[in-house]
């Protein structure tokens, strides 16, 4: 085999899949620090576990499918899936939850569809939804952000808790866990409480939940870095945030007694990780420029619909998967106008 390619173009660009993935991971660091700051080091244990399981599953599937290990194990895509998944689930999720999720993501959502580049659905979100449907209790048991509880865990106890299900003193998760601000908002609005009143509870901060709003902001900062580096285009995040903003403002203005503020929606739950890191997954998102706007707006609108009127407190995962299904259709109808195809004068 020759050392160099002998067909044009002979000039090599600098873009590499692995480079994309590394920058993506880098962009997650600020939000990760925020997560650890507010919810303790459990997420670090989850990430380590998820990456290990993901790489093992990836290697196993590549072996079974008779594909070379090196280019695919080092492309970073499995690691990105693992990290995004681990950052999306509760920080003290038991080890088996993470394992099942990652195995399902890598084996079913990714490799059974053909591996990198061929999966129609975002693997991390497929796993997230599977777990949410199968283990709703474990998937919604979040910790309150530190400061609300004296039970701030250190790394050892987080590790112990994730793998044994209880702390050294025998305390279970119920002693210190709680619902997320989105969850609280949903339940209490359902009980006809006023959003403006709900938001005054200690769980809430300036706009969203305490801690949550900062985590969302740091996800957004990482996302802006990705746009600046050209790893993702601005279209999907911009369209998604704009759509969410428009629909939440509209409902907030029409029914302030039943709808949370637009800023609450932007800075709660998975809005920013969804906008910048999940919906922008190139494999499963729309690829045309116009299509990306449609895709992003769709995710934004569906997220709001599920949050406000659906059965789940957060809707990012469902919204992304639903829009994934529409991608071929969107791409087909949003093809750019090719040079010379316009009317001739």
């Amino acid at each position: 085999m020759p050392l160099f390619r002998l067909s044009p173009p002979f000039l090599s660009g600098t873009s590499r899949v692995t480079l994309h993935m590394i920058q993506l991971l880098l962009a997650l660091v600020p939000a990760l620090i925020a997560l650890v700051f507010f919810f303790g080091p459990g997420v670090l244990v989850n990430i380590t576990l998820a990456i290990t399981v993901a790489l093992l599953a990836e290697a196993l599937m590549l072996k079974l499918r008779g594909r070379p290990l090196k280019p695919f194990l080092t492309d970073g895509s499995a690691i990105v899936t693992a990290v995004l998944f681990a950052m999306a689930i509760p920080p003290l999720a038991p080890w088996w939850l993470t394992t099942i999720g990652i195995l399902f993501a890598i084996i079913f959502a990714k490799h059974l569809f053909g591996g990198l580049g061929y999966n129609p659905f975002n693997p991390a979100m497929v796993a997230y939804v599977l777990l949410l449907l199968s283990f709703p209790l474990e998937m919604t048991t979040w910790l309150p952000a530190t400061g609300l509880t004296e039970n701030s865990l250190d790394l050892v106890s987080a590790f112990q808790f994730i793998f044994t299900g209880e702390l050294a003193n025998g305390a279970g998760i119920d002693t210190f866990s709680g619902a997320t601000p989105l969850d609280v908002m949903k339940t209490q609005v359902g009980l006809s409480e006023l959003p403006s009143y709900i938001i005054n509870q200690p769980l809430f901060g300036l706009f969203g939940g305490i801690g949550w709003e900062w985590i969302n902001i740091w996800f957004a900062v990482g996302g802006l870095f990705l746009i600046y580096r050209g790893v993702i285009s601005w279209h999907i995040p911009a369209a998604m945030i704009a759509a969410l903003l428009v629909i939440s403002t509209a409902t907030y203005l029409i029914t302030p007694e039943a709808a949370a503020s637009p800023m609450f929606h932007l800075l709660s739950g998975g809005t920013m990780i969804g906008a910048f890191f999940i919906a922008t997954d190139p494999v499963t998102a729309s690829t045309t420029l116009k299509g990306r706007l449609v895709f992003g707006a769709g995710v934004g609108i569906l997220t709001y619909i599920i949050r406000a009127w659906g059965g789940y407190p957060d809707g990012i995962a469902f919204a992304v998967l639903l829009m994934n299904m529409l991608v071929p259709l969107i791409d087909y109808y949003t093809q750019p106008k090719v040079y010379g195809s316009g009317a001739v004068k």
Partner: protein
Amino acid sequence: MTQPLGSFPGGLILPGQKKRSTQTPIRKMPLTKTLVLPLQQHIGEPAVATVEVGEKVLKGQKIAAAEGHVSVGLHAPSSGTIIAIGDHPIPHPSGLSASCITIETDGEDRWIDRQVNENISQLSSHELRQRIREAGIVGLGGAGFPSFIKLNPGIHHHVETLILNGVECEPYITCDDMIMRERAQGIMDGIEVMQLALNVKNCVIAIEDNKPEAISAMELALASREQLKDTKIVVIPTRYPTGSEKQLIQVLTGKQVPSRGLTLDIGIVLHNVGTAYAVGRAIKHGEPLISRIVTVTGKDVKHAGNFETLFGTPIHELLSFCETKRQPEEPFIQGGPMMGYNLAGDKLPVTKTANCILVGVDEPVEATKPLPCIRCGDCADACPVSLLPQQLYWHSRSKDLEKTREYNLFDCIECGCCSYVCPSKIPLVQYFRFAKTETMNQEQEQQKSDLARIRHDNRQERQERERLEKEEKQRKRKAALAASKAAKAKKEAEAAAETQTDKQET
């Protein structure tokens, strides 16, 4: 100087790597012992040799004549003897051999009589075109389309603008840059001729802003021309592939050439600045096209630069003249690094389309197996004609040719931007070329089978007609037979009756 009016989507800002070959003036490549001249150095029908082996020829003497309309002749680049006419390897992506005339030079470099023409305005546009054709001039930008055809708009088109392409957007190549720097007056001569031939006043010379020396040299030359007061120099931003015909028109005018149409359809004719220089030499000085400026560059070329090289000069002699150390594994490119092609070897002649020989790309593409497409869409963002390479790739790969056509495969200009930006390193252009060839083959097959089917239908129809005619004939014959039989019987009966009556009478 005026501003460009438009822009195109996508494109790339590439590292130009042009300085390496612009440090020295254009030099003359010394005469070599043999010159090998392929009969086809242009798009169209190959020329036909008009000389025989053993014949002595002079520099500039015609040695092959144009065959058919889309064709031009060929001239001896130096004086000497024809030593062979036959197959010889030619520079071609597939490493083909083709018919060539080989001249052994005598070192005297003796010219034929040249007809100098100071007053070109006395010549009719037809005469100008004829002379340009006789001089064997083709587009020197790289495609090699016979220039006289592009100077003949015909009666159905009106030419509003002549565009001179001095963009040279591909990295490494500097032959147009250097010819503009050093021979701007010669280019102006050519532009005057082209304007006369096309009967057009309005002319735009487009130069990328990374060639300030060329721009000032051209402006200086233009200022001294009374004839060219409607000619403007437009400096355009450096971006690949601005030098491509369609993209340049879009940048300069904001207009688009209709899909599968000609630039002439929107009243524009484009010529390369090197071609203009050749046209000027041919008309004003009576010199046919026998040499061109070739950029020899790359990281393995010690004395990179531009060389005025006679056609037929073996590439390996040109390379050793510049002290080139070719590495065995690396690509060896004729043309630029984006759209050029790999040469099969260096025992090949320099031809009319050889604008650049590139030995040693600074950032070559490694021959690794590509990763799968991750649908990042970078290719679509880079595509200057707004195609969706990721979809085209998908359908080309699965040989779904119908779909590739739906996604406008044939509007692809093969500029290579998509392959360049692909993070998975997929050789997209190769897939598209493959799909194009397959489609054209299929169309040919289709035509063939259509023809066969029509023949078959005609044959059946003919056979059926013949059968019917035969039957008709048989029926007629039978009827005639029956009729004659009946007549005979009647006659006999009558005769019998007569005899009876006779008998009765008797």
